[in-house]
């Protein structure tokens, strides 16, 4: 964009847990996330008491959080979120948790983990993020 030449771009490199490419807006959580438990499946809005994203909608976002938590039924919840149209577009985690990996594979959501820099510190909510999970590359365009 003309006039915003100073918009900063950052490239992060990590490992691919589930393939796919997409572009979207970042939503960053300092708290862990369980697909069954953190968001309400039918709305995508976080309802877990005390959660850092309480009241925020994860639908269609590039979701960045430390790692997965919660029940081992999580891949099903993730698949339903996707079917309801409320799944995140991509998942970026510091560390991969098997529940999240299986969720991402079965729901066909690109997922990257173990990046060369801490995604929670580098990426801010609202940043524009391009994910190429096949290549393990995350391109961040800062909005501030």
């Amino acid at each position, binding site marked *: 964009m003309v006039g915003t030449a100073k918009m900063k771009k950052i490239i992060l490199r990590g490992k691919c*847990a589930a393939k796919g490419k997409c572009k979207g807006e970042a939503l960053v959580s300092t708290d*862990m996330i369980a697909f069954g*438990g953190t968001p309400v499946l039918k709305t995508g809005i976080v309802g877990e008491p005390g959660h850092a994203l309480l009241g925020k909608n994860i639908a269609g976002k590039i979701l960045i959080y430390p790692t997965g*938590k919660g029940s*081992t*039924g999580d*891949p099903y919840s993730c*698949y339903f979120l996707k079917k309801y149209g409320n799944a995140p577009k991509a998942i970026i985690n510091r560390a*991969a948790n*098997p529940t999240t990996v299986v969720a991402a594979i079965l729901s066909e959501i690109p997922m990257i983990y173990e990046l060369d820099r801490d995604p929670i510190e580098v990426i801010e909510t609202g940043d524009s993020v391009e994910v190429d999970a096949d290549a393990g590359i995350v391109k961040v365009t800062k909005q501030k």
Partner: protein
Amino acid sequence: MKLTAREEDILAGKCGKGRKKSMELLVAVGEVFGAENMVPASSSHLVIPEIQLFPKGKEAEWGMEITRKLIDGVEKFAIPATINAFVLDLEKAEVLNIPAKFVDDIRPIFESSQKIYEAKGAIPNYSCTPFFDFFYRQGDHLGGAESIQVLFNNSVNGARVNRETGPTSLAVAVTGVTPNYGLHLTRNRAGQILFELGDDLDAGAFTDADYNALGYFAGRAAVEKIPVFKGLPDTMNEIDLKYLCVPLAVTAGIAMIHVVGVTPEAPTLEAAFGGKRPEEVMVVGRKELQSSYERLNTARTNYLEYIALGCPHCSIRELREIAQLLRGRKVNHNVVLFVATSTIKYELAKRMGLVKEIEDAGGVVVKGMCPGASIFGRYGQELEVTAVATNSSKNAHYIGAHSGGHVKTLFGSKEQCIEAAIAGKW
């Protein structure tokens, strides 16, 4: 990953579609977590979505889209497979005040799905605590989901199982193998963070709720490190261990703990940490336990409709204790007290007269049913439930979370829960 000729054949589709799909999933997980090979699993514990969390409508269909692909063409499971709790004990639905319409809505898929898995050889214990029904040897490699199954089998039985998922638990039962990474390897089983008890706590006097509160806090603090607890009594029984373990997969994704002097891989503090130093040491006191109680008690009044015990499912010892507490007493007619256990332990408890004792006092013993999170968390609003009391942090947490905070929770010891049941209020 290096696969055997048999595993390569399965992957190539020579043994049918379901086995191929199952092996693909296990290989994908193994690749991400750096597994060098597969190991034979001695058993698996299945979590089937359409009978537990998602038994109705579109969600049941969607769940089956995943599971049916994994069992396509599979006549019998390769290894013994226990099976997790289901959403409702249909025979007790009426006394639980669950409307007939709800029962009618779930019955078709619920019953046909159970038949499908039982025909493939699944052990119909229908319980989140298969370790009270089935034998696990130290060092056994297991497949399986249900976080308390994973935590208890790793920590208390010394078996080896990663915190995987419903779909992979099924894939392991179908193929008989599991990717060899994580907690299957000795080097990954050492403790990382030490929790010491503060001077203001008397662990010898801990109730079931106190163990829950300790685990609930420890999960939040440990995040992904393997916790080691020091200072807990060596008299801890399976009930204490169950309630200490269960919250660690609720507030975090933890799959194993050590309790020094209690669990098999922690005879000493040094052994618990595999000879290394703790990465972190935390002292847990009264204040930390109190923070757990505050988070788990979301109700602002003493009103309640249900009191749910048996999350995770009761052992025979716990059923016996509940029966003793209810002896000569009467549950208030305005509330429903129910106690959950496996189908197997239910038969045992019935023969021992425990079911009759609890039910004569006005309680309800349910078999195979998940006592709260599945039904009140997912369907609480639809069933017009507003407040549930429980002695389980997992139940309290998920009832609140799954219902988006609509169903409020009251959390305390089983003694407090039973007093509330008698009084009809918290």
